[in-house]
């Protein structure tokens, strides 16, 4: 019995190791820099994460989604301010990054919105965030939590 399940498990192990080998069309060359977020007040307010996503490879990559144990609904959003000075925020959809290019998630523009927080975001702590790409690859980052009034990764 034990032996049988071990043998059955083998193809799965091979499949998993195949997925983490550099067989993707681009996302293995994605580098995430300067990730940061703000501490939360309670868990009812959404959080926001900022970072620069750089494509150092030779193929375009498309960021399709996010995952984190910290929030049940993480989503890439974009804030916009119209000609009347009215700000609004909406899901940004998929984001394609051309080879050699980068996309900045920064205050007042693109941000990783963390909806339905599962835990407090406490200044000084970090949390894992995974970016998923259309080629099936994933890039994991550890995001530092700064103060509520933080203005950027250095403040």
């Amino acid at each position, binding site marked *: 019995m034990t032996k049988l399940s071990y043998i059955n498990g083998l193809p799965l192990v091979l499949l998993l190791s195949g997925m983490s080998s550099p067989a993707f069309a681009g996302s293995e060359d994605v580098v995430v820099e300067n990730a940061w977020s*703000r501490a939360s007040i309670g868990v009812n307010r959404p959080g926001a994460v900022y970072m620069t996503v750089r494509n150092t490879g030779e193929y375009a990559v498309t960021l399709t989604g996010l995952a984190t144990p910290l929030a049940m609904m993480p989503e890439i959003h974009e804030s916009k*301010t119209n000609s009347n000075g009215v700000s609004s925020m909406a899901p940004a959809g998929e984001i394609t990054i051309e080879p050699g290019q980068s996309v900045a998630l920064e205050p*007042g523009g693109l941000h990783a919105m963390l909806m*339905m927080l599962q835990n407090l975001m406490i200044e000084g702590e970090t949390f894992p965030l995974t970016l998923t790409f259309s080629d099936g690859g994933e890039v994991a980052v550890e995001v530092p939590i700064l103060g509520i009034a933080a203005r950027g990764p250095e403040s």
Partner: protein
Amino acid sequence: MQRRHVVQYGAAGVGAVALMLGVGWWRADGPGAPKPAGQRPLPLSAMDFRLTDHEGNEVGPETLIGRPTMVFFGFTYCPDVCPTTLSDISGWLEDLGDEAAQMNVVFITVDPERDTVEAMAEYVGYFHPAIRGWTGPANQVARAAEGFRASYERVPTKGGDYTMNHTASVFLFDAKGELVTMIDYHEPREFAVPKIRRALTEDVEGAT
């Protein structure tokens, strides 16, 4: 049968058009209408609203007259634009140093349902100590926004929650309560701080 179907589609079509016209009205002329660009806030002396500050004091536009004033609309459940603006304002106030103490700096919520006095008190506590948080009944918040010619709108989000679209400009008034200028969202600090200095030193007679 064919004809009957056509009639049914026709009726559905009329319904859909009526609905779209309804939506169109709401956006174009109704409560969802954007404020025409260039519509300036009233002088503070011409505004009329009653709110409560984050320490429980009754406040209104008259509270602001006598000192230069900076006003910003937002809400504490705002993850991006509002903490960014309040951080920017905090930075400007730090740059101004002692001069900041001569100003009123007010953050008015557009989401009084969630932003109670206690919520405002906790929130503004994380930013520059000069910043006051004002909230109150929905109709009084609406009257305040009307006076400033600010607009806001509740927008449902996934998961049954909601967010608020709102005017993100910072309004600057002189000590007499006349509008001096506005600081647009994301205006660089090197432009914002001189504008605030202007509000602090504005010759009241010359204010427009």
